[in-house]
């Protein structure tokens, strides 16, 4: 099969690629576009390591076909930092040591960013439920939750000051 030509937007940039009909968006990102931040943990939507947003909606890219991205707006972990400036969530994950092996981290960051855009002041309960689809086998989650709370507080403070 010849493959399908797809035009989409990824992290604000226009992108074109050719992919097979049964290829997932995750495989397209990693294997065709060299955006290897999204990880394949389970490949079945259980672990959240491949989290991206499509038209602002948090999804598992392993459960999206590459061809479905036509005309959509995809955001991945690669779009989080602005050049050398880390996103507050990224800084807080480092400060709180909210990662060990790091495989789940891109997914957590993308998911946490989506949460804070929807709810800038989430409770611990809300953070834990929102991130329940992101699995981490190293940290025990506490440091991740604290990093998200701290980042949220800083981002709220920044908005007041601005």
């Amino acid at each position, binding site marked *: 099969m010849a493959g399908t030509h797809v035009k989409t937007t990824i992290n604000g940039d226009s992108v074109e690629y050719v992919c097979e009909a049964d290829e997932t968006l995750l495989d397209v990102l990693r294997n065709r576009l060299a955006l290897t931040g999204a990880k394949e943990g389970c*490949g*079945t939507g259980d672990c*959240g390591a491949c989290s991206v947003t499509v038209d602002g909606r948090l*999804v598992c890219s392993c*459960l999206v*076909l590459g*061809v479905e991205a036509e005309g959509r707006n995809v955001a991945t972990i690669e779009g989080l930092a602005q050049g050398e400036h880390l996103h507050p969530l990224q800084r807080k994950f480092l400060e709180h040591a909210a990662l060990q092996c790091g495989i789940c981290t891109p997914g957590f960051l993308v998911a946490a960013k989506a949460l804070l855009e929807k709810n800038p002041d989430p409770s611990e309960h809300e953070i834990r439920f929102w991130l*329940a*689809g*992101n699995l981490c086998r190293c940290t025990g989650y506490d440091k991740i939750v604290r990093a998200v709370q701290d980042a949220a507080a800083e981002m709220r403070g920044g908005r007041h000051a601005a």
Partner: protein
Amino acid sequence: MQYEAPATIDAAVGLLSKAQGLARVLAGGTDLLVQLKSGTLEPDLVIDIKRIPEMTKLVAENGGFRIGAAVPCAVLGENAAVRKLWPGVVEAANLIGSTQIQGRATVVGNLCNASPAADSVPAMMAANAIATVAGPNGKREVPVGDIATAPGKTSLAKGEIVTSVFLPSRPAHSGDAYLRFIPRTEMDIAVVGVGVSLTLGDDGVCKAARVALGAVAARALLAEDAAKAIVGTKLDEKALAKLAEAASAACRPIDDKRGTKEFRIKVAGVLARRAAEKALERARGK
């Protein structure tokens, strides 16, 4: 595998009708892509319905709501008006998977995947929701409980596709609720699920009720005797005990890794009672 993303229902029906080999409809893909990945399903044609404008809409209609087949559960949960009218349906839909799954999964997909443990199905059956089916011979309307026939099997004929589900309007003093049993706090498949919808008269007596059970038979069941047990009562202790007994009696479960027959039968009664009490609170405006 061929991928098509038609822009109209007619085009989707045309593609499905003419399909040689195995064709599958893609809504949120949270079941389909897992089946593709595992190789349990190797379709020749996948028809993505998310480019069909009316399938992506959640709209108010005749005092109720029409949920397009491509509307993700997250969108349902974010809609305050739907939550207010049918809180039980929304809580059932929002129990399916994680935030990421909610962003893609649809209630029509949940219905057509035809799992006996589908969370949204008993809640929609309790709500007396109606599925609209488009096919080569036009449109027909089907109670949601008649779509699934057995695990993974539906009553849809070749070329047919569920385009939306309609949640009807409801009288004052109505409430609904969905509860399920899983061995952990969230993100699991129902061992038993129960949806209850009821309407009270001005005197507080239950005028109408529907009770539906999931994961206790080859498909979700309407438990009519359980509903009858509370109609004409104020859901006193005696009526609730009768409701629980009738819900348990309606079960025809299997033993599997998630639960035994005996456990499911027992839990169905317990959950039916609790769901009825929750629906009652909502009907009373609490």
